[in-house]
């Protein structure tokens, strides 16, 4: 699957993770700090993934206070 990461924006190709939670664990990303968009649809952490998916992992943390 193609995975889009941000800050800085980059794209990587991965295979293997069967769902969003496993993908985030593989990339060592804390789920609470991101939303995940699969093929333009927001998905929950148990959503199943296949290798043809395009997945964006979008950080939600902003630095202003």
């Amino acid at each position, binding site marked *: 699957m193609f995975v889009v990461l941000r*800050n800085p924006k980059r794209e990587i190709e991965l295979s293997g993770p069967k769902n969003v939670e496993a993908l985030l664990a593989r990339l060592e990303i*804390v789920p609470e700090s*991101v*939303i995940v968009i699969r093929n333009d649809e927001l998905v929950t952490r148990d959503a199943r993934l296949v290798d043809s998916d395009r997945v964006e992992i979008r950080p939600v*943390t902003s*630095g*202003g*206070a």
Partner: protein
Amino acid sequence: MRCRRCKADAIIDLRRHNAAFCRDCFVHHCHEQVRRAIHDYEMIEPGARVLVAVSGGKDSLALWHILRELGYEADGLYLGLGIGTYSDESGDFARAFAQRFDLTLHEIDLPADLGFDIPEGARTVRRSPCGVCGLSKRHLFNQAASTHGYDIVATGHNLDDEAAVLFGNTLRWDDEYLARQFPVLPATDGFVRKVKPLVRVGEREMAAYCVVLGIDYILEECPMAVGNRHLAYKELLNSLEERSPGAKAAFLFNFLDRAHERFADAAVVDKDDLLRCTICGSPTPGEVCAFCRLQARACAAPDSVPVTLRGAAS
């Protein structure tokens, strides 16, 4: 996962609420959380004129959208900070949002209207860019609201922001800041009321709200904020939240409900004793307010600070 309300396929899980929601129920959830915050903390009366501090980011645009959906009269004010392409793009998102929903967006541009930008100001006074940015925003939003007849300034500070600020204040046991940390700061002479209607929703919720409603916002982080303490506190709290869902909300709301009042006596400045800044007329404990001192040092030839609103989008 299934939606807690209607059992349709969920699009987001919120472990803090032990719930997941479909698109429509999630939007309803966000509106209800903001409605409850406004009610519980008596933030906005019917008919009040609200000025939303708009940055072009997810929180302020979502806040503006929700306030309008809930029926409040809310205009926006975008403050151009002069932080290179980041500010250019942020302004574009704010203007596009206002145009799409036919809303009134006012603008102040720090470099064009006040003669300095945030990086320059921070270098000149040898303070952190975030400190100079915060000072400028507090001053200019308050002054613009006072001058142009708005009753309330609403900011997009969310549950994560407030928990991270509380974490920092508690680490230092900064009782003066703890005394001031509350979702509503009441109006006093020269200060309009400040409210934080997103205090009950997290950053994930606001990012998701924008995605499901097709609200485009700036995705890049402010280059001035990279590596700041606030982000480090959020990382720590998010790790804690993963292990203990609800920890951030418990930390913040138990403070607000049970501990905040204990710091009431620590507020150092009595707002009734403030003077008027001899340059801009804003309330200040000294002769010249902190913002005008900043501007005077950052500009070669400081002028007075008449805040004019311009560029309304509708």
